[in-house]
């Protein structure tokens, strides 16, 4: 495979991706959903991400793994510009979503965040009814009929595999649900606004094994429709659900590649140590 220097990078038929060590991924530029180039990010004076370059494929599950504090959440939050709120954060480098720079001044941040949905580590349903939680994003868009909102709420709850458990009590407070149900509610809420990308920051870390399995199943069923990015500390989970895995350490991208390859034949010693549990924290 050759690299044609005259074409813009993202239009290359096959791309050299990830780290400077030249990992080669088997997806075309047209299949690239998020394109991160030379991203450096610092909280005040403290650098959290160092010159990251990687591409995230469309309609696949990409997992970010790495020890605590390595910058996984920071990277995830950079993808929907949640850092904008923090005045201390400084950033260099670009992120393209479907070929468009997300930091372009013409980009409406709210619309970007709708397209790039995010589910946080701890379930954060709003203190409203289950129904209102799911309808929240829809109502922001305005102009939707009651009937249409009803439909979308039902569809979103079904997509998040929560419908059967809550259909009889949509008006009940969302805070009356269990932790696992709350997390699926938050996913349903995010799905309701039909995002193109779904960022999941350790979505199952606070859940029991059964709820975790439900979330993993959900991720698999969503894959044909969405680009998913998953942060996890659970190696088995990453291996089970992701197609690609990126290993971060100290704010740097150490290794990135297809999950099967990365877990069975890691190219680097550091990756192998982390995966096999020899390197902790």
């Amino acid at each position, binding site marked *: 495979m050759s690299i044609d220097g005259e074409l813009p990078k993202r239009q290359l038929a096959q791309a050299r991706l990830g780290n400077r060590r030249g990992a080669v991924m088997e997806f075309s530029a047209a299949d690239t959903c998020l394109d991160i180039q030379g991203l450096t990010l610092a909280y005040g004076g403290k650098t959290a991400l160092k010159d990251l370059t990687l591409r995230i494929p469309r309609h696949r599950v990409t997992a970010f793994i790495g020890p605590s504090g390595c910058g996984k959440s920071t990277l995830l939050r950079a993808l929907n510009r949640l850092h904008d709120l923090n*005045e201390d954060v400084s950033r260099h480098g670009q992120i393209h979503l479907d070929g468009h720079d997300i930091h372009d001044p013409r980009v409406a941040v*709210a619309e970007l965040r709708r397209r790039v949905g995010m589910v946080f580590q701890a379930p*954060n349903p709003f203190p*409203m009814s289950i129904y209102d939680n799911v309808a929240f994003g829809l109502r922001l868009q305005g102009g939707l009929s009651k009937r249409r909102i009803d439909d979308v709420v039902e569809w979103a709850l079904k997509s998040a595999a929560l419908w059967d458990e809550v259909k009889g009590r949509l008006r009940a407070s969302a805070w009356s649900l269990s932790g696992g149900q709350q997390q699926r509610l938050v996913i349903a809420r995010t799905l309701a606004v039909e995002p193109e990308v779904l960022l999941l920051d350790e979505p199952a870390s606070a859940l029991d094994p059964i709820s975790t399995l439900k979330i993993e199943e959900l991720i698999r069923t969503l894959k044909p429709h969405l680009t998913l990015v998953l942060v996890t500390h659970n190696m088995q989970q990453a291996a089970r659900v992701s197609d690609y895995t990126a290993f971060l350490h100290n704010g740097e991208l150490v290794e990135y590649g297809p999950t099967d390859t990365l877990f069975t034949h890691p190219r680097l010693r550091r990756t192998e140590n982390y995966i096999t549990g020899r390197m902790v924290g």
Partner: protein
Amino acid sequence: MKIPGHTAVGMPGKRRTREGPLAWLAAASVALSLIMLGALLVLLSVKGLSNFWPATVHQLTLKGGETVIGVPLETRELPSRQGLERRYLTANRDDGGGIWRWLANDQITEDTTPEDLVVLERRHWGTFFGRLVALQSGDQRLTGPDAWTVLESRLKEINALRDERRRLTHDEILPLIRSMEDQDGHRSEDRRLADLQRRASELQQRMQGDLVVLENGQGRRQEQALAEILEAWRPNAMAWHEKLGHWVRELWQFLSQGPRDANTAGGVWPAIFGTILMVLLMSILVTPFGVLAAVYLNEVAHQGRLTRLVRIGVRNLAGVPSIVYGVFGLGVFVYGIGGSIDRWFFESTLPSPTFGTGGLLWASLTLALLTLPVVIVATEEGLSRIPLHQREGALALGATRFETLTRVVLPMATPAMLTGLILAVARAAGEVAPLMLVGVAKLAPQVPLDGEFPFLHLERKFMHLGYHIYDAAFHSSDVQAAMPLVYATALLLVTVILVLNLTAIFMRHYLRKRHGAPVRR
């Protein structure tokens, strides 16, 4: 596994004893506070509410042969320490001044409670204790039991006439006069006014004419116009349920009527109304300002040194003595803004001020200013307690910062705002000092809300329970006579504040439930 120092099952007894002294101390201070609070309420209730009970009236014969009619009150030791003496309420202020009398127990040779003793509540000169000798109605002169029966029915008639006359004056004559003044010179309504005034004097005529002949303890007779008498009862002839009915009626009159006799008698309705209206207006004014200021400080402003300085300033404003706010309100609102309003809009009535003098609006504004820091601080606390992940949850769904604020943050902070409002109401309802500068009146029988356009009269002076207490306790001719009223009014003020607070607390409870947050406290 066994951890040294801990028993495996149950709570180690050692720990509990170590917590002992502190827990006891805390419990003791709670108990003490509750006892003091309870004592306060009991004192106010007993002293305030017993005032309306128709107490038994005693007829005493003294050693010298003198007869005294009165209600026994407290007992104390004689100055000579040989025996006790007792204070009697003898009423009859027109009978030589005093309404109290101390009598030594051994002075009294006979103590009876005859059923024919009457108590009269009069428009002037306060209460009368004695006997009804005769009732003179036109040429008719009734004596004995008939006199009492007719007196009772005539009083009802007269009271109805008096109410009708008051209604006519307040609702028809006064508004008409005011509207005629406004259209100065225009006298087309003259006929209507004369007509109304004739009806009023007709009512007055029908009230008058009857006389009662009364006899006091010493047997001295006096005549009194029946129209002067508001109420008459014979406590010694009343069964307990009649007394209860009387008590309820008196209490109701206290709550529903205006004051009489230079605020030493009568009711406090204008003061209740004024207090509540003023507090409500204050709440309406302070809430939006306080919430907006808190939102600005917490959500909008750059969290730099200046913001921190402003925040410290706001917190310290809460500690400024209330009279200072009164001075500020007088200078800025009353003279400054009010004076300007008068010069621009009410030039025709100058030099008599409309807004350039204390009034409901200025009092509410001054108290709103006084309570603003409380609302700001409470709201800010509520805003800052809302977890970041709730805000981020909304943002991640495509909400703008403004939408996040209005749809997630503010609803979640409503209980905190109401907590601020509760504190503000509690402070404002009990505040008297600044009001004396910016609009409270000793007597303003017309409440600032009526059927006359624009219905809510923001420029009017108003009565206030707190000031009423102050006025009755310090400025009445006979402070002791006014004391029961002071207690009753104080009890009422506490009740009003309690009711206002409970309303806010229930609102907060309801909102917490609606927003799904766990209900605390």
